[in-house]
């Protein structure tokens, strides 16, 4: 019930292409879905997040698409750049009164993205 499954494990994209990473969750009580970006030797950093009252959220080249009925959400990176090469994690949390659970994230397994020049 607490799992978040992420695919693919690794992804290679040419510069200017679209990178797509998918996640599926089981716990219908989840109501906060962030994506984190991690560079080698660094901690993860919040990239973009969505709550289930909207089906899409866009910030610059990064878009989250959310399908509540299918319990799936995805990250799209448009015009991918070599600087986007990193590990991306989807995550989910929520379902508890008062919002105290939002930091108790359940992470996906991670996707290593490589963008070739």
């Amino acid at each position, binding site marked *: 019930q*607490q799992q*978040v499954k*992420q695919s693919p*494990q690794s992804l290679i994209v040419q510069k200017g292409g679209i990178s797509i990473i998918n996640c599926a969750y089981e716990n219908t009580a989840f109501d*906060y879905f*962030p994506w*984190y970006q991690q560079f080698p*030797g*660094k*901690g*993860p*950093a*919040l990239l973009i*997040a969505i709550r289930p009252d909207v089906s899409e959220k866009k910030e610059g080249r990064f878009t989250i698409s959310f399908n509540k009925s299918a319990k799936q959400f995805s990250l799209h990176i448009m015009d991918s750049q070599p600087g986007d090469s990193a590990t991306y*994690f989807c995550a989910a*949390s929520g379902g508890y009164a*008062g*919002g*105290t*659970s*939002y*930091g*108790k*994230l*359940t*992470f*996906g*397994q*991670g996707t290593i993205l490589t963008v070739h020049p």
Partner: protein
Amino acid sequence: NAGVTQTPKFRILKIGQSMTLQCTQDMNHNYMYWYRQDPGMGLKLIYYSVGAGITDKGEVPNGYNVSRSTTEDFPLRLELAAPSQTSVYFCASSSTSGGRNTGELFFGEGSRLTVL
């Protein structure tokens, strides 16, 4: 601001030894967390704290202990280290807005621990 600071960055332990991973944050955040990251497994929550004096277990707490005597500090104690505790450990904190956790975690740079 330094954000979330973890020490040490690297450590090698022998089986059965104990040690403490230090974590401090200067953002006055109430919420703090310890996660461990293993290859292909994502990050898993070990312990968390909602404020000074209050801690609770996460998904994988066995073999670890925490304390939270101040808002700033949240050390993680490993007792009787085992090879299964070889991992990268991340401390994180998050703020509140209107009394609710924002959900945005600020991570430290990690502590890489090897148990031999």
